[in-house]
């Protein structure tokens, strides 16, 4: 197992590190913020982040520095930073660890970002179920404000920052950036129509930057060690390290930090210790529930944004779900669709009606009631959702379905022909109840 340099997990990997302000400052914490406030202009910070090539870790992989630079420079009104900590993608649990184990790393990143974009108020939209995380963050903010590293007049520079922890109420869609803004504003969490983009009309119609926890946690390290150091890690287009959350049929599930571009094989067989019970690998989801499935033949692909995209999947939040040979792919697709159907916000027609329809078809196929025409219908229904919805949720929900039909068509056909699930023969019985 290769030994990679840890960046985000560096502090918490040390024994006895408790994530408190004192412990964080002992490891050199808040030095970056202090340096930024005294030596950098906001434009310098944005430049530095741009040069580092840091791409958003939330899923879309949009360059962070570029996003920050979209905020109008000479805008008079307030601007906001929203930290997207609504980590509800099935299989993803990296932000939770970052927030709970080393909150100050992320808070420092937020402070630097706020300085760069000129925001004086930042929100952390944390998933409702993260009780502990919200508590830890609130404590950390209090602690930092008392120590004057956050709050009013930080390090005597005259820069003020108020960070508010806003807890979500359990909707997956609120992880979508505009729905997140609506939710913070106290409205029903449903995505806005874009354009206008949040950088122009965001929270309360003011310019807003929305970044993932992991993205922001990288910022202090970029400032401390320089953009070129950061750009040297990972691949050319995807720099830095990435936290891979591995789950499923593996011996050692968990979060692993490794540079961008390590292969999926290395992650599964080295970091996660291989498939449980040494069975055959059947399929992998490389980037959370919305990423298309990958087959065992593709696991030598480097895990970076562009390589994964090139083979028709996406890196997303790098939540790797591993399935062994005992998994029924139709069942897996149905399971994911159940999640998407449950979480569809109901705003636009294709996603609202489509997810329910597709789910019902998948249930029929899985339970042996499928028809010959169903596969063509599924493909057509998915095709109508993709690209036709208000937000990216529509594209996300069809990914698993289309990719499983593409890679495992035979299995679907088998279900329909045999009129039962070969791997779960009792499924039909369950349907009767």
């Amino acid at each position, binding site marked *: 197992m290769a030994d990679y340099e840890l960046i985000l997990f560096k502090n918490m990997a040390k024994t006895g590190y408790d994530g408190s302000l004192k412990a964080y400052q002992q490891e050199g914490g808040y030095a970056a913020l202090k340096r930024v406030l005294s030596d950098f202009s906001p434009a310098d910070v944005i430049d530095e982040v741009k040069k580092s090539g840091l791409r958003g870790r939330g899923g879309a992989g949009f360059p962070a520095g570029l996003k920050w630079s979209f905020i109008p420079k000479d805008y008079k009104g307030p601007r906001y930073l929203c930290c997207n900590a609504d980590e509800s993608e099935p299989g993803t649990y990296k932000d939770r660890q970052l927030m709970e184990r080393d909150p100050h790393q992320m808070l420092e990143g937020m402070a630097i970002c706020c300085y760069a974009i000129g925001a004086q108020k930042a929100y952390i939209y944390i998933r409702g179920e993260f009780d502990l995380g919200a508590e830890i963050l609130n404590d950390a903010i209090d602690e930092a404000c008392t120590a004057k590293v956050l709050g009013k007049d930080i390090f005597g520079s005259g820069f003020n920052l108020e960070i508010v922890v806003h807890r979500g109420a359990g909707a997956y869609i609120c992880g979508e950036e505009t729905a997140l803004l609506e939710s913070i504003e106290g409205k029903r969490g449903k995505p806005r129509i874009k354009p206008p983009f949040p950088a122009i009309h965001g929270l309360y119609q003011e310019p807003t930057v929305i970044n993932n926890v992991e993205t922001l946690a990288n910022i202090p390290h970029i400032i401390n060690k320089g953009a070129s150091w950061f750009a040297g890690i990972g691949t050319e287009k995807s720099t830095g390290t990435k936290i891979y959350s591995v789950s499923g049929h593996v011996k050692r599930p968990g979060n692993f930090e490794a540079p961008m571009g390590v292969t999926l094989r290395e992650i599964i067989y080295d970091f996660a210790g291989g498939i449980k019970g040494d069975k055959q690998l059947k399929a992998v989801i490389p980037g959370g529930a919305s990423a298309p499935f990958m087959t065992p033949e593709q696991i030598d692909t480097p895990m970076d944004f562009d390589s994964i995209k090139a083979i028709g999947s996406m890196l997303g939040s790098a939540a790797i779900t591993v399935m062994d040979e005992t998994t029924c792919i139709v069942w897996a697709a149905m399971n994911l669709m159940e999640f998407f159907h449950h979480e569809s916000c*109901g705003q*636009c027609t*294709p996603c*609202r*009606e489509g997810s*329910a*329809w597709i789910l019902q078809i998948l249930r*029929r196929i899985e339970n042996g009631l499928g028809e010959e*025409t169903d596969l063509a219908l599924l493909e*057509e229904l998915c095709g109508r959702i993709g690209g036709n919805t208000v937000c990216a949720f529509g594209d996300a929900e069809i990914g698993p379905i289309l990719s499983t039909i593409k890679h495992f068509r035979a299995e679907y056909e088998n279900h329909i022909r045999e009129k039962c699930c070969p791997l779960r023969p009792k499924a039909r019985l369950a349907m009767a109840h």
Partner: protein
Amino acid sequence: MSFASESTLGDGPLKTMSELVTFKVNDIEVSAPKGMLLIEAVKKAGVEIPHFCYHPRLKPDANCRMCLVEIEKMPKLQTACTMPVAEGMVVQTTSDSVVASQNGVMEYLLGNHPLDCPECDQGGECQLQDFGHQHSKLGSRFLEQKRVFPKEYFGPLVEKEMNRCVSCLRCVRYCDEVMGVTALGSFDRGNGTQIGTFAHGELDCEYCGGCIQICPVGALTSRLSMYENRTWQLKKTDTICNYCGDGCSLILEGVKDDITRVSSETGAGRNRGDLCARGFFGYGAINHKDRLSRPRLNTKGRTLEVTWDWAFNKAAEDLKKIVAQHGPDAVGGVISTHCSNEEAYLFQKLMREVIGTPHVDSTARYGYINALSALNEVFGTARLSHYEDIRSADVLLVVGADMAESNPIAGIQVKDAVRAGAQLITLDASSPERDTYYSHLPSLATQHLNIRFGTEQSAIIGLVKALFDKGIASSAPRKLVNQIKKKVAVISFAEIEATTGLTENSYRRAAQTYAGAEHAVMIVGRGVIQSEGGYQNMLRLEELSILAGQVGREGAGILPLASENNAFGVVESGASSEYLPGLKRQEAKPKALTLLEMIDAAAEGKLKALYLVGADPLRNLPQKKVADALSNLDLLICQDLFPTETNAHAHILLPAASFAEKSGHYTNHEGVVQKGHQAIEPVGGAKPDWMIFSILSNKIKEETTLPYFKLVGYRSADEVWKEAVMAMPNDWQQNSKEAISRHVAAYAEHAEIQYALQTPRASNGVMDLQLGQNRYHAGTTSRYAEGLNRLLDCECVVIHPDDAEALQLEEGERVRLSSHLSGASVELPIQLSQKQGRGALFVPEHFGLSVKGLLPLTIDRESKVPYGDRGPVKLSKVAASTQVKG
């Protein structure tokens, strides 16, 4: 006066549409204003893009995805409802990918849609049906189980059938964006999304019916006409609403002679397609079974139902007898302000020319005449501002008006303006808290001048005084300025504060905002016009606007709110003791009597015959006095829709046709004249008022010796209108800038300005009672509308919860109101409302007669308007033992 309906639609992107851009749709080249939404712009090429969630009255939401079109150089299909047109855009609305996506969306929407079109009230005018025919294949591939919601009612007037819903959220957005009521919302997720109220309660809102009208499918339908007819059977007639002075365009829809539904066309009329509860649900009065159907004679204690011919002959004969015996001056006539302009014109002609009496008046005498004559006195016109001015104004000053209750559609214009960024200043005694979902303008106000009850007069002085520090507009005549300055100099802010309870600062701030505005519109309501000192207070407000320079120019002005639909028109048509047609002053000898003076004259025996058209003085004036006067008359002719207390005394009672049964012109409070068309034949044996006047004139004329008689046989209301318009030629366009400043200068020369503070009244356990309009009712006709009665069907006392708590009263408990003046008392249930001012009570005026008896009556010296809507009453709890259930 006509306003293009298109310009009133969708205020947002259309405001700046000077520049034209050229684009191509389906290879047709079209030009459209820059920034116009594609979905609207393609209509110019005759292309229709199917849509559900888009509506010109609402902001685009792009949730139905039906309007996806292909635009060159764009990677994906784009929603036409959010895409502004740009130069050189190439749009395809019928390409394969667009058609595929439209078919797809349609199939999705129809997947769970129940096949109950035959039962659905929307069937025949349903967008899902229409677009379904165009954009879906035969048969369905949806083999799964349909999602089923249970059936539900949604309050007493709205039916909700969620299975039919396409989740376009138009209803929610209308409730939010137009009405500002936010009673509706969507809850649950995915395809279980439902439209609902907060916490699943009964719909608790203003019942404007907007959600029903705007629903593209049959998810929300009216319970009032539920399943009564199919849309293709309905005959539709454009007319003007008869309830308040807003002048809304209505479409009456019905089968044969039965009105079963009301709608309005989006963007059409003064209301731009918005309606209130009265307009939408208040049509039940037209076909009510209690309508008078045949003429009646009351002679020697017997009531006879007679033919029209008999009644006309009898009326003509009796009138002639009285004219012969006592002279024409012994006859008086009063017409209701619900009658059309033609009828008012013809009535005054019947009175003045055929009979020869100057004693003509209308029910505008109950208050609106104050506003009209005060405006006419100062500006020479009463047409000073329009709804368009309100919507584009940057400051609105609303004085003494609860617009959301009395004039909801004018209220919508104010809400629109506030939403567009206008500053709203309200001045009344209500508290600024908002009550549940009902709109309440002070809650939207940037400044709410919360004065003590009944101190509008002093508050206006405060505003005028505060204005002098800000600087007076250069357009104000010096003489007027000096005179006012002298008058207000002797009044101190301390005195004003003692009376109104408002500090100097709040007056200064309000006056500064008002005077500093680019375009300010002042809206004056019943609290000024129809309360003590109304005429003088109206003059003070006009002077305020002159001093601030907010009148007599484009976009600024004064709008007095009328509570009757044609108060303006009836007076302008000459049915008023001081005005001839066209607001020309009448110099008659003997002096023309006003309504109240006629009652007095009748009591004294000077007036022998009275002709009441829709007027009900017994309801509006002290009963004993009026009853005595009426019984003293030799001849009382009443003409009405319904039996009332007054027309029970009538010697001759003539059944009149309602607004739906006749055509005629109505002038709303802006001064906009609109035509209402006849929808149905008169109910029962009723006749339109103009026809009655015309026939009666002919009957009288046959043997009359009056020399100046002209032919009064009219075949249609249009003929009357042609003549009436000729009688008031020059007053239509008197609102030019020059004419107004000329008038103001003339007024400054002869004005005698009175500025007097009211004396602060000590509240010794007495509460202030105000009678007024409820949002669900107007006048007394609305009591016959079943739909409105489902919302409010009895009198109640509205009180602030704090007051109720202090008195240990609970919602619905009965209380006794008693007057320390007359000793009379009334028992009524109470209703709690946050917006009610503390220490003040409110009773809707539409129901009982007895509350009126508690209040003192004062009469305006100048305009002879009787004020009897306000007064102190004692409120006491009814002992539990004497409480009557129900």
